[in-house]
């Protein structure tokens, strides 16, 4: 069963609608500055990508979110649902599912719970239920009266891409006709104090693939993509942006925080996705890389892309969206999938900004500093995260015949 992308929504540090995000991304606008969401006192790293001037301009009534993380996700999902023209109460056959994904979930609730426990103080009765990651899927499903499967994946920074793969498989398995996928995370004291000790952050610019790169910068926000059974989308006259034709998920099976030396997990997950899409590696026209701007990720990922694509790797553009938006954690995979879809639709690859000094170990074409017009049909998008999690998806032009078509023929 072919899976179509029929709606997209985003709340990012460089834009709070898909067109604004895409314009900013193509124009190389950075969303990174000093953070202000919580006191920087004592923190070694102070730069991040915040959602400034966030206006939750949707009336969610009884389903109104109370934390930043949930607010971002509701706003992104609302845009995607509107974009896909999924009407109110249109889920009459109980076939619309929800798949959310996050690293940290509603950290406000967790921090409240832990602080109350430390002080032996009273705990609000809503705190623990709010912290349960599943509550995000419930919030969205309840708001739009969706009665299909509702689930949440948490696979560190590969979460968003994993949610797209799992959401696609729910459609392939016949469990849903439409799946609202989402990825979200907010900056919080908990996450920041933990991420600061991982030795992956920089106080300078995030410079993927540049020889001077010295770390990543974390951001907050949410992305949402509506996946839909291709025939269902055609039958209701939906606009089909692209097709999600393959996915892979795995683990390096090496170490919780250290990268695997030869990038075997990253290589394997890309191959899983390409095989699942039923295409040859040479058919990949563009890679939207995980490209965090850390010393090791960018080398390992470059090696892995070369291992999978061979010489072809040098012939295609590689995008590093994190140079503009920062690392949106649980939202990163969906946000980068939105960028990948827009690249297919518009035939443009956004630039890798802050790029100045080439690194011989990262010698692929990362489209430095200026966007490039190039016709694209097939994009491979990578994500990875702590614990050794990897995820990859293949997105193709909306008129593509996929392996699923061939299986059904």
């Amino acid at each position, binding site marked *: 069963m072919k899976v179509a992308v029929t709606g997209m929504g985003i709340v990012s540090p460089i834009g709070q609608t898909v067109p604004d995000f895409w314009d900013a991304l193509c124009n190389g606008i950075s969303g990174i500055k000093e953070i202000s969401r919580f006191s920087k006192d004592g923190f070694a790293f102070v730069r991040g990508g915040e959602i400034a001037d966030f206006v939750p301009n949707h009336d969610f009534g009884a389903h109104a979110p109370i934390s930043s993380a949930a607010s971002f996700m509701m706003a992104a999902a609302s845009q995607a649902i509107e974009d896909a023209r999924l009407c109110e109460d249109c889920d009459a056959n109980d076939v619309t599912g929800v798949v959310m994904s996050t690293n940290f979930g509603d950290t406000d609730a967790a921090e409240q719970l*832990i602080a109350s426990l430390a002080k032996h103080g009273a705990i609000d009765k809503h705190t623990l239920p709010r912290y349960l990651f599943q509550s995000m899927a419930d919030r969205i499903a309840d708001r739009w009266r969706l009665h299909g499967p509702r689930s949440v994946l*948490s696979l560190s920074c590969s979460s968003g891409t994993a949610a797209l793969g799992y959401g696609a498989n729910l459609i392939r398995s016949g469990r849903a006709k439409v799946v609202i996928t989402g990825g979200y995370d907010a900056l919080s004291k908990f996450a920041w104090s933990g991420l600061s000790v991982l030795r992956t952050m920089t106080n300078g610019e995030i410079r993927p693939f540049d020889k001077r790169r010295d770390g990543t910068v974390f951001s907050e926000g949410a992305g949402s993509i509506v996946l839909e059974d291709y025939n269902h989308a055609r039958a209701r006259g939906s606009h089909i942006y692209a097709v999600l034709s393959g996915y892979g998920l795995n683990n390096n099976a090496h170490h919780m925080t250290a990268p695997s030396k030869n990038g075997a997990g990253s290589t394997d997950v890309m191959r*899983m996705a390409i095989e699942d899409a039923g295409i040859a590696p040479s058919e990949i026209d563009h890679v939207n890389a995980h490209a965090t701007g850390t010393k090791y990720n960018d080398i390992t990922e470059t090696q892995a892309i070369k291992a999978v694509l061979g010489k072809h790797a040098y012939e295609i553009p590689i995008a590093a969206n994190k140079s503009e938006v920062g690392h949106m954690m649980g939202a990163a995979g969906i946000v980068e999938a939105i960028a990948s879809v827009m690249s297919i639709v518009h035939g443009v690859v956004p630039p890798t900004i802050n790029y100045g000094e080439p690194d011989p170990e990262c010698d692929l074409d990362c489209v430095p500093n200026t966007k490039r017009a190039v016709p694209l049909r097939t994009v491979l998008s990578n994500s990875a995260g702590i614990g050794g999690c990897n995820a990859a998806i293949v997105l193709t032009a909306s008129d593509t015949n996929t392996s699923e078509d061939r299986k059904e023929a």
Partner: protein
Amino acid sequence: MMKPNKRVAITGLGPVSAAGIGWNSFSPAILKNFSGISPITVFGTDQYRSHMAAHIPAFDIDEYLESQKAYLDRSSQLALAATALALEDADIDAHDLDLRTTALSLGSAVGSLETMTMFFQGFLEKGPRLVKPFLFQHTYSNTAISLIAIEYGLMCMHLNFASGFVASGHAITEAFDLIRSGRTKVAIAGGFDALSEALFAGLNASEFISPDTETGKEISAPFDEHRNGFILGEGACVLILEEFDHAIARGANIHAELVGCGMASSEDNRESRSSGASAGIFNAMNSAIQAGNTDVNNIDLVMASANGSKIQDFIEANALIRLFGDSSSSISVTSIKPLIGETLGAGSSFQIAASIAAIKAQSVPAIINLRTPEKGLQLGFVTDTPLNKNIRSVLTNSIDPGGSAVSFLVLSSQTTI
């Protein structure tokens, strides 16, 4: 579906529960109605309304691992032990698995909340520069599954569900779908959740759990007219799901066949009792039965989600009455939650294991604390003592108070439909 679906065998069972660790301990305990619920001793409970839990006593993770670990959250310990037991039961050396056709799919409601609490309390007391760096990697929801992948070299399909009380249900359903579609041959699938004070305190405040009050005692009494909430349990239960022909070819011991899984949801699981039969659990059960190409007349037992909750037990009972129609008063219904507690994300996988115990022994554990069913809920509740009967197929449910429901149809390995 146009493609022929593969069949799914269950060839390994790794339960780690308060009522027993390992299949040979868990199965007889469940069948004898042994309850693992006892007063909590691992932290003080004077300030809480409740004082009981199904806590696993005398558990030593070193018995299950090849090498000692410097630190593990309790949830990771339980999940690692359950995985080791399931692999051993299935007679599988994980290092020999074909990784491209293997899946690791687990779920939990709160993951590593205890370590997260320790880490953030360090931040609150000492500030960001003096937190314990090594703890942070043990705070993630995917910490346990990633440690399992590392332990066994499982560079394979890797899915971690954080979907509340139905988390292992989702993990198992996805493993089932991956096997049915031919992408996976062997899946390590299940769920886990550990007792911690943070979890207990949060649930205690939430009014989910049964309180010890002057007017009512703290008890897990599914479907009872006096039920007042659940008693928390901890544990992990991992299953080995295997493509049927793959299991036959390697001469595996097939415990049972998983023939159907249903997933659905509705907004009424936590609303007023007036909503009656919830569409979510009803649709999930129907979907599981349809996937098994059978009908309600061929179901011998329902392993209910019921945990003593005022609302969810009522909703489930009404959905069962609607589903079974004229035969609802005679359909055997049980719940193992008075034995192992409400194990949250591990619940679905424990119930599949308990269903297999009932099929193998041809005996149904009783709902031990059910004295008087709530008026109007007329089902064939198994009470007081285990019931011996012919059991070929079991329908087992899990309901999340937020609205999700899953249902599984488990069949005796000797049955064909």
